[in-house]
């Protein structure tokens, strides 16, 4: 009779920043079942929103998630604008996409660094986060803050981008190009990365569609959806760029999508800031009120579509504000991708959907042996993942990707 044990991942460990409960039911080394338990982050934001004005609620939803500081506010104000039929000045559209794409780059770099750490390449983690700091510098220059930018409002944006700041933005894009290219080549060509991620945690296109998967998680499975193209908003319909998809749905393809998307973000930002030189005018249409009605706002966050629904009765507060983050749809796909994998691979697979736990609500893994429950901390589980890499290095002589000189 096979021994079944349950492996806990989370909730509190240094790298998976948020409390999450995945219960991995394990037989030997293989995961046979996954439970996901939420509740550790629920702060009642939808109800709180009903006590805020339409402008105040933007600051509330910004704090749903630290990385989605553009995503939630943008989807929120778009929902309000949809409800009220409110127009947004063209200049503001370019500013919205500029900030949004800068956020996408720093979010993907954050994930790549963490994934690198989980696999055991700590130098890559430091490298990815070092360049992330440069993106945060520019965001601070434009918005006044590294995160929680407070940029969005119904009708436009709160701050204009000064002409004098544009050279700094273009300079950042130029400086990112080579490191991102070296990163792409170092990671994607590396046999050790391939060994750890190809064929691992596969989500088929059919299952991605059944779960309503979103963002890179969907696109890596060949599910060709991207809110920026499909439901044009901000400046995405005004500039040239391409949607990135991959066919296999494994951890490798999810990483490839995120890496290649950053290049598309560079393209979008460059076109947007160049437009700012000629598209002048106000950045806020200053709507005096929100008439009664309902509206939907969708935005392609780094993790996928953020969805907001807002209902107004003509007053200054939402009567109802529904918020749905992309991880809400992506995290359940883990039930299919993690089952059948080994414990060493499980952490990587769970991380591959880039779960924004605070957006979703949160997850843990518990290990119970016949002698009683044994808790393996997430730190230990990450270590198991790293050790697998180090064993492979010994067996094959591969050294892993060399980070670029900087």
């Amino acid at each position, binding site marked *: 009779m096979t021994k079944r044990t349950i492996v806990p991942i989370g909730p*509190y460990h*240094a790298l998976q920043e948020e*409390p999450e409960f995945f219960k991995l039911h394990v037989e030997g080394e293989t995961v046979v079942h996954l439970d996901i338990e939420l509740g550790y982050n629920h*702060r*009642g934001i939808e109800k709180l929103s009903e006590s805020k004005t339409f402008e105040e609620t933007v*600051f509330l939803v910004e704090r749903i998630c*630290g990385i989605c500081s553009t995503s939630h506010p943008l989807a929120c104000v778009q929902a309000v604008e949809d409800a009220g039929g409110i127009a947004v000045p063209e200049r503001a559209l370019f500013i919205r996409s500029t900030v949004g794409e800068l956020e996408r780059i720093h979010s993907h770099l954050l994930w790549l660094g963490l994934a690198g750490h989980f696999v055991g390449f700590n130098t890559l983690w430091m490298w990815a986060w070092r360049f992330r700091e440069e993106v945060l510098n520019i965001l601070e220059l434009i918005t006044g803050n590294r995160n929680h930018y407070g940029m969005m409002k119904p009708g436009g944006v709160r701050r204009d981008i000064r002409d004098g700041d544009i050279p700094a933005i273009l300079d950042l894009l130029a400086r990112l190009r080579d490191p991102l290219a070296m990163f792409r080549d170092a990671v994607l060509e590396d046999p050790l990365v391939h060994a750890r991620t190809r064929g691992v945690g596969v989500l088929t296109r059919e299952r991605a569609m059944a779960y309503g998967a979103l963002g890179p998680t969907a696109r890596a499975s060949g599910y060709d959806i991207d809110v920026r193209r499909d439901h044009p908003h901000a400046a995405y319909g005004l500039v040239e760029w391409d949607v990135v998809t991959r066919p296999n749905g494994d951890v490798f393809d999810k990483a490839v999508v995120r890496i290649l998307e950053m290049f598309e973000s560079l393209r979008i930002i460059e076109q947007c800031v160049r437009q700012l030189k000629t598209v002048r005018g106000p950045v806020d249409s200053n709507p005096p009120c929100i008439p009664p009605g309902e509206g939907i706002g969708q935005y392609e966050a780094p993790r996928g579509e953020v969805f907001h629904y807002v209902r107004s009765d003509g007053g200054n507060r939402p009567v109802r504000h529904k918020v749905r983050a992309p991880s809400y749809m992506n995290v359940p796909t883990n039930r299919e991708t993690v089952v059948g994998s080994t414990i060493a691979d499980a952490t990587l697979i769970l991380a591959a959907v880039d779960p924004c736990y*605070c957006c979703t609500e949160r997850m843990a893994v518990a290990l119970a042996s016949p002698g009683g429950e044994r808790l393996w901390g997430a*730190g230990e589980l990450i270590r198991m993942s790293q050790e697998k890499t180090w064993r492979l290095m010994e067996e094959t002589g591969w050294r892993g990707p060399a980070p670029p000189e900087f």
Partner: protein
Amino acid sequence: MSYAINTLTRSLNVFHLAGSACNNCDIEILDALTPRYDLERFGITLVGSIRHADVLLLSGIFNRKARVRLLELLRQAPKPYLVVAIGGCPATGLLFRESYNFDRPPGDYVPIDAFIPGCPPKPEAIISGMVRVIEGLRSGALAPRCMEAGRPAPASALPETAA
């Protein structure tokens, strides 16, 4: 006691607990480890288990469920340890204060030694705060509250919050 404090301040092992957080403080804490800020040159290391921790960093509002977990973890923490609240959330709950799922400020049931406010505090502020904690320990102005008998009064300049 002074031996334990000296041990504490020579190199600090920091364990980070996020409870119902938006994650922004958590990322800034991790950012403080990156080469740009490099917390490690102050002898501060992030550890993966509370059993090795000298300092507990708390972020987030700690709803009911998270509170249960926090208390379970604290039972495993070897004394002495310091508790540092990062950001406005563990101090007051900020704008989540009126939520139906708000529990209570963790300071009500955990002795907090220092607050580093912000939303989020920048890595510079986090480092500055940690340096002040170390200096406070060395000078004797700050002693780990977990060693005190009875319920400690809050140390920070933040206003008293009602339970």
